[in-house]
Structures are given as C-alpha cells and as structure tokens.
C-alpha cells in the first residue's frame, strides 16, 4: 500500500487508527470485566467497570477532536475520507458499548442482592458470542478486512436468537417465582445489553466494509436491530 507524500498526514491517520484500537480494547476489557463480575457475583469488579467508563468517554472526545482536526487540515478524499468517517462512527458505537458494560455492571450489583448464585449457561454462551463479535469487528477494522467484517454481520442473528431464549427462560422463571421477579428482570436486562453490544459490533463491521470497499451495506442485510 502506498503512503501519503505528507508524512505528517500519514502520522495523523496512524494515530487516529491506534487511538481507536486502544479504545476498542478498553471496551472489550470492560465487557469481560462485567461478565466476570456477573459470574463471580463481585460488587468490586462491577464497581471497577463503572469507574473505568470515564476513560472510554475521554477516548471518545479525544478521537472526535483528532478526526475533526484531520478533516479541517487535510480535507481528505476517497479512502482517507471513508476512513475518517468510519472512525467518527465507530467511536460512537464503542462509547455506547462502554455504557452498556456499565449497565451490565449495575444490574450485577442488583443481582448480588439476591440470594441465588444461579447464572444461565445460555447467558455465558451469549456473552462469549458477543465478545467474539466485538473482537471480530475491531480486528476487521485493524486489518481493513471486509470479509472478516461480513462474518461478524452474518453471526448477529445467532446472538439475537440466544438473547430471545435467555429472556424467554427468565420470564418463565419470573412467572413461577413472583418474589424473585427483580432477579429475573435484571438477568433479562443483561441479556438485552449483550444483544445490543452485538448490534453495535455489527455497526462497526458495516462501517469497516464501507471504509474498505466504499460500499454502504447498512440496512441491506435484513438484520433486525433495535
């Protein structure tokens, strides 16, 4: 791949990519931590998730500023323009993913007030799929790999199905144990948060395809999102 005649421009684009990657890594870590908090019933881990969100918020602001600067200074076109546009969109998705990790952590704290230690095997499966989707989307971004991004998008329906299964099971349980309704509601919320993280990962994958191929695939693959 050829490089820009302007070394400074080259450096700005590289910084933008690296900052986004670091932010994505942080978001991944946050979800992992939130799921660990759920598994271990740990208030401490949940609190750490809530505390660490500030770093992701800061990333968002700084990456926006960097992208803004590149637009103003370079007026990028073609693949450069698509890359900066992609960065600006991805940053929003990653920031939301961070917020959803915080939501999970808050629900974990609620769950920890309830006596049971029961966590669904289904939920574990769902979390694993969602983590894989996010990692897949971020890897696709790093390597400019549209095929990998397509695989992430193709995997989203499976996440949706699992989420529906978890919620259905939780609501069934809630109707049997009315006194434990809060617990089951919290669990189904976590499931929905995970499903939304999957949707954001799909968004990232779509933007990667746009960035690489110059083709907008949003809203074209029939996947339902909320």
């Amino acid at each position: 791949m050829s490089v820009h005649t302007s070394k400074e421009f080259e450096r700005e684009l590289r910084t933008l990519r690296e900052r986004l990657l670091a932010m994505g890594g942080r978001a991944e870590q946050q979800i992992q931590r939130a799921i660990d908090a759920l598994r271990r019933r740990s208030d401490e881990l949940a609190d750490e998730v809530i505390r660490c969100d500030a770093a992701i918020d800061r990333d968002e602001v700084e990456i926006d500023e960097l992208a803004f600067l590149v637009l103003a200074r370079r007026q990028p076109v073609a693949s450069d323009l698509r890359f900066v546009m992609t960065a600006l969109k991805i940053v929003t998705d990653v920031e939301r993913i961070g917020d959803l990790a915080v939501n999970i952590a808050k629900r974990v704290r609620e769950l920890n007030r309830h006596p049971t230690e029961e966590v669904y095997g289904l939920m574990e499966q769902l979390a694993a799929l969602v983590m894989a989707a996010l990692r897949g989307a971020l890897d696709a971004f790093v390597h400019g790999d549209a095929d990998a991004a397509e695989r992430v998008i193709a995997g989203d329906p499976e996440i949706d199905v699992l989420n529906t299964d978890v919620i259905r099971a939780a609501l069934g349980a809630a109707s049997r144990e009315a006194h434990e309704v809060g617990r089951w509601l919290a669990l189904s919320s976590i499931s929905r948060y995970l499903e939304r993280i999957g949707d954001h990962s799909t968004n990232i994958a779509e933007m990667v395809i746009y960035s690489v191929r110059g083709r907008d695939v949003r809203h074209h693959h029939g996947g339902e999102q909320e």
Partner: protein
Amino acid sequence: MSERSKLEVRHLTAWFGKTAAIKDVSLSVPAHTVLAIIGPSGCGKSTFIRCLNRMHELTAGTRVEGSVLIEGEDLYARGVDPVFIRRRVGMVFQRPNVFPTMSIRENVLAGLRLNGVRGDHASILEDTLRRTALWDEVKDRLDESAVRLSGGQQQRLCIARAIAVEPEVLLMDEPASALDPIATARIEELIGELKQGYTIVIVTHNMQQAVRISDDTAFFYLGELVEHGPTKQIFTTPRVPRTEDYVTGKFG
C-alpha cells in the same frame, strides 16, 4: 454519441513533435455540466483542453489525431475555420489576460468587434457584466483601463469577454489559481451559474475546487485518461488505484 452530449472527444492523440502528450483519449461531456480535469503537472491536462478549441495546433511542430465533436460536428473536419471554432468554444486562462490598452467596455466587446458581430452592444455589455457579477462594480467606470481592476475582477472580465460572443462551450485553465480565496469563491459561484447557459471544461490543481464545482471529473496521467466518472465517485470511491493515490496525495 449520446443524446445529451454537447462535446464528444474520440480517440484524441496530440503530438509535440514525436512525443504524444495526449494518448487516445475518448470522453463526452453532457450539455450544461462542468467537467473537471485533474492530474499532476505535465499529465496533458492543458494540452487536452487546448485541443478542444484547436489552440494546440498554434504551437509549431504539433499535430492532432482523432476528433472533437460539438453537437456532432467535428472541429477537426476539413474546411472548418479555427477562428469560428474559437467563437463556439471560449477559453479563460490561468492568469487574467485583459487587453491592457483597452477599457473595460472594449475588453468585453473585443470578441464581438473582432468577429464583426452587429447588434445592441450596449445591452450585450450590461447583460454580460451582470452575468459575471461585475456590473455593479464597474458600471460607473466602463471606460477606465481594465488593468486598474483587481485580479479577481480582471478574471471575471476575461470570463465576460469569453461569454460575450455566446460560445457553447467554455474552457477554463486553472481560472482561480492566481486569485485569493474570496475572488476564488466568486469565480466558483460564477461557474455554477454559467453552467445553466454553457458546457464547461475546467482544468484545476485544486482538488477541493474540483469537488465543489464539477459534475464529472477526468483524471489524466502521462497523457492518458485514467479514470472519468461522476465527481462524487472519483473523490469518494475511485475505481482505479492510480486515481486513488493521486486524489489522496500518495504520489511520488
């Protein structure tokens, strides 16, 4: 030739002695559109547009093959008078080249006088200066020397002079490169208005300018037409890697 094409270039090759500066270029320009020609220095952009009004042949040792059709008529057909062609195809250059010994009025009307066009010169003068957004600035000093105008005004005067003879096609060779940003913005706005009446081909080194003013863009490299398509496509998703490299500044 498609119905809407105003200008059609077919297999155009332009020579300087034994060197081909333009190699087998074919493209068409729909009526009332702006085509931007981009490419690095020496790629043949200027030679190309100088072939569109038979100015290339004014240089000794040059030769042109292929055809350039306006509304289906070949400018290079036997018996066609180049002077008449330059009335149909007007040209504006990089530096404003007002006639220094002439007044503002005489500059606008020079083409008409040269071609012996009769008619209401006073109203043509006003109309032309209004269309180039100069009227309010010069209406009280029409008999002053044109060189007393600012650079931007001089360039608009050159455009006025070019359109006074009612050409069908307007060629512009980097018309704003010697102007400040405000004067440039005026010229760009003017191009947007002029395309209602004319078909415009503009050479520009300013990529953002090409994006702002043109409908289609053609990228030339080493005398060859590398890519030609809607401007939006050329600057968002060019198809040819060399175009991508050029517009993103990855050349050399």
